[in-house]
């Protein structure tokens, strides 16, 4: 039955498809600056995100200098320190990772991987980037207003975020909130594009269950973002009103540094709920694309099909759904209704199940694979290590009773850096190395890249592993200095020095990466269209780098899933997705992946 319905479905795609040809730019400005080509937009997004990411990196070094060598640097006082912490956290999470994964990788890879000529609304896509840039500029401007950037912590908890005694309550917080609002508007424009492209503009034969996991990860992350950012938008608007008009959404009756205020009756906890209703999906927004990409890296470089593709997809969906009902695990000690602890501890541990499933599948994919330790593979394996590490500490924190002593200590800092600052960053590097040959047409310098990997991988372990120990020792986070605190042993300071040194080494190590990227762009060897022997569509384009419109005259037709690696009897040891069964030299209905329903295989129709 399913078969018949499918056959009758017309061959031509959505009617809008033909219009993709309409907007070929004529001017230089239209081609490279106000480009509507998703690939150019992707590069623009990425470069902007990395540039602002480097700012956040510098801020983290400033923090580390203070923590490692207190009282040494006179330019770091408590307000500068808090400003650095805040901006570091916010930039890294929102302006670097979210933008880079979705705006950067999403734009580049989605149309190519699903076999579309471009995003469905190229014009809106272009606007999305420019609005994002505006948001970044507003954010940067907040460093330079009187009073400086906000120092409220990246969670911006009221009342403190808008009350005297916190740095940046004049211009800083207002610009921060504005910048977030602008970011969200820009992101929504892009996000609608990614989602609709995945849902409505795939090529012939590309079913959802044949999409590479990269696309799945980015797609689900985008959906989460579209549903989670509204909560942040709303809370930012309300805080702006509290700050500028004196409304009392989040502000109860209170005193402020000895002065009475005119606020009355608001609820600070409300902000926390809304923020984390956004915030927890947000951490998966930065994790899911990493999950997806790493699956593809692992499969490609281990020459093996991904283990349990179907399970992986369902796990992504489950994580996406569950991530909306765990938010208050960040609030166990926030003074909320304490009975919520039961609910959220339970849901939090449930969400670990699909995540653990993914981890097992990666490991099983590697199991007896023909592992090629190419640079992207190194990063992927590094990711698996750090993610397991960070995920397990997450379970500690998720268990409400264990969280109570650990919350707001360096244990939490260790957890989220392991799981967010190291793991996805490793994936980003791995992904950049993986797709660099496609994007530029040239190969990077492998030796330098390996150095870069080992410095970053071992170095970040050296930074964050000791932080867990600090957390057990009771060292609180967001502290400018510890003074003499009796229960902290002297070794705490020694550990801090070591962490700082490691952080500086890692930060300097990134210069290798930038040098490698820049040099190879001009001097690297020609890479050829498919250096890694990958199956997905972006490696099968007519040109490398792909031109505007991505594919040649005809859109590719997809005959198989994305993981036909190490196929016995195939010409190469892999079969690209767009190779028809006849050309693959092996029978099409082999037993490799019986979970793919052949009934939906248009190949069946084309060849009978």
């Amino acid at each position, binding site marked *: 039955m399913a078969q018949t319905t499918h056959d009758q479905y017309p061959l031509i795609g959505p009617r809008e498809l033909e219009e993709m040809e309409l907007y070929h730019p004529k001017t230089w400005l239209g081609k490279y600056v106000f480009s509507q080509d998703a690939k150019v937009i992707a590069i623009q997004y990425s470069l902007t995100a990395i540039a602002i990411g480097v700012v956040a990196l510098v801020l983290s070094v400033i923090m580390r200098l203070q923590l490692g060598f207190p009282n040494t640097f006179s330019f770091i006082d408590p307000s500068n320190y808090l400003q650095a912490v805040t901006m570091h956290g916010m930039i890294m999470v929102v302006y670097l990772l979210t933008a880079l994964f979705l705006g950067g990788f999403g734009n580049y890879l989605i149309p190519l991987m699903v076999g579309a000529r471009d995003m469905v609304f190229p014009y809106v896509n272009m606007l999305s980037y420019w609005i994002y840039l505006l948001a970044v500029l507003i954010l940067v401007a907040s460093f330079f207003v009187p009073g400086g950037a906000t120092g409220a912590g990246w969670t911006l908890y009221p009342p403190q975020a808008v009350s005297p005694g916190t740095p940046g309550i004049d211009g800083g917080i207002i610009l921060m909130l504005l910048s977030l609002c602008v970011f969200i508007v820009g992101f929504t424009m892009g996000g609608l594009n990614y989602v609709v492209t995945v849902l409505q503009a795939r090529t012939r034969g590309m079913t959802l269950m044949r999409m590479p996991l990269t696309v799945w990860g980015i797609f689900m992350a985008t959906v989460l973002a579209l*549903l989670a950012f509204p909560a942040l938008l709303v809370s930012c608007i309300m805080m702006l009103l509290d700050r500028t008009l004196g409304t009392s959404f989040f502000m109860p009756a209170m005193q402020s540094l000895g002065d009475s205020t005119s606020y009355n009756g608001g609820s600070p906890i409300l902000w926390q*709920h809304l923020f984390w209703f956004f915030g927890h999906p947000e951490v998966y927004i930065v994790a899911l694309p990493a999950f997806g990409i790493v699956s593809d890296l692992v499969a490609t470089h281990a020459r093996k099909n991904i283990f349990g593709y179907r399970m992986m997809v369902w796990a992504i969906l489950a994580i996406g759904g569950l991530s*909306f009902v765990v938010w208050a695990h960040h609030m166990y000690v926030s003074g*909320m209704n304490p009975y919520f602890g039961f609910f959220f501890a339970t849901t939090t541990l449930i969400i670990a199940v699909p995540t653990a499933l993914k981890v097992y599948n990666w490991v099983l994919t590697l199991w007896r694979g023909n592992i090629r330790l190419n640079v992207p593979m190194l990063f992927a394996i590094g990711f698996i290590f750090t993610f397991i590490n960070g995920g397990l500490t997450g379970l500690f924190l998720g268990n409400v009773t264990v969280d109570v002593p650990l919350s707001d200590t360096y244990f939490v800092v260790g957890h989220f850096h392991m799981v967010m600052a190291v793991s996805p960053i490793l994936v980003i590097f791995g992904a950049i190395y993986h797709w660099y040959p496609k994007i530029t047409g040239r190969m990077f310098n492998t030796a330098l890249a390996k150095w870069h990997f080992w410095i970053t991988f071992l170095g970040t372990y050296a930074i964050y592993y000791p932080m867990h120990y600090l957390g057990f020792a009771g060292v609180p986070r967001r502290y400018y200095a510890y003074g003499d605190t009796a229960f902290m042993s002297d070794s705490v300071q020694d550990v801090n020095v070591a962490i700082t040194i490691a952080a500086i080494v890692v930060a300097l190590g990134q210069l290798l990466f930038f040098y490698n990227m820049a040099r190879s762009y001009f001097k690297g060897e020609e890479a050829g269209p498919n250096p890694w022997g990958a199956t997905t569509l972006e490696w099968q384009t007519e040109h490398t780098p792909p031109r505007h419109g991505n594919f040649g005259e005809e859109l590719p037709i997809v005959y198989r899933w994305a993981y036909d690696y190490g196929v016995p009897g195939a010409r190469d040891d892999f079969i690209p997705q767009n190779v028809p069964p006849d050309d693959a030299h092996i029978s099409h209905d082999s037993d490799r992946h019986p979970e793919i329903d052949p009934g939906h295989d248009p190949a069946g129709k084309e060849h009978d």
Partner: protein
Amino acid sequence: MSSDTTHAQGQQHPISIYLWIWGWLFVLSAFSYTVDLLELQGLLRWSLILLFMFLKAGLIVAVFMHMMWERMAIILAILAPPGAILVLIALMALEGDYTFVTRLLYFHNPAALAE
């Protein structure tokens, strides 16, 4: 689910159905308004308001926005995610109540004194 589904030319439905729904929306709005006019209070008031609200919302989504003629794929894709909101609503209601109770217990309450 009705079977006269979409077709390449878009949605085609007799004009009468729009007029009918329009009429119903008027009536339901008038009902909700009457609830206020009659100064009904307590459980009756809330349940009536909610009832009329959901009926109106349902009519708008189902008919004016053509949801009832869409395919199941899109109906579920749109209607399922707001479930997350329901969790938020439920928990925030509990939270608001909890806050209120601690305030009542420990804070000076000018309104109560005035009574």
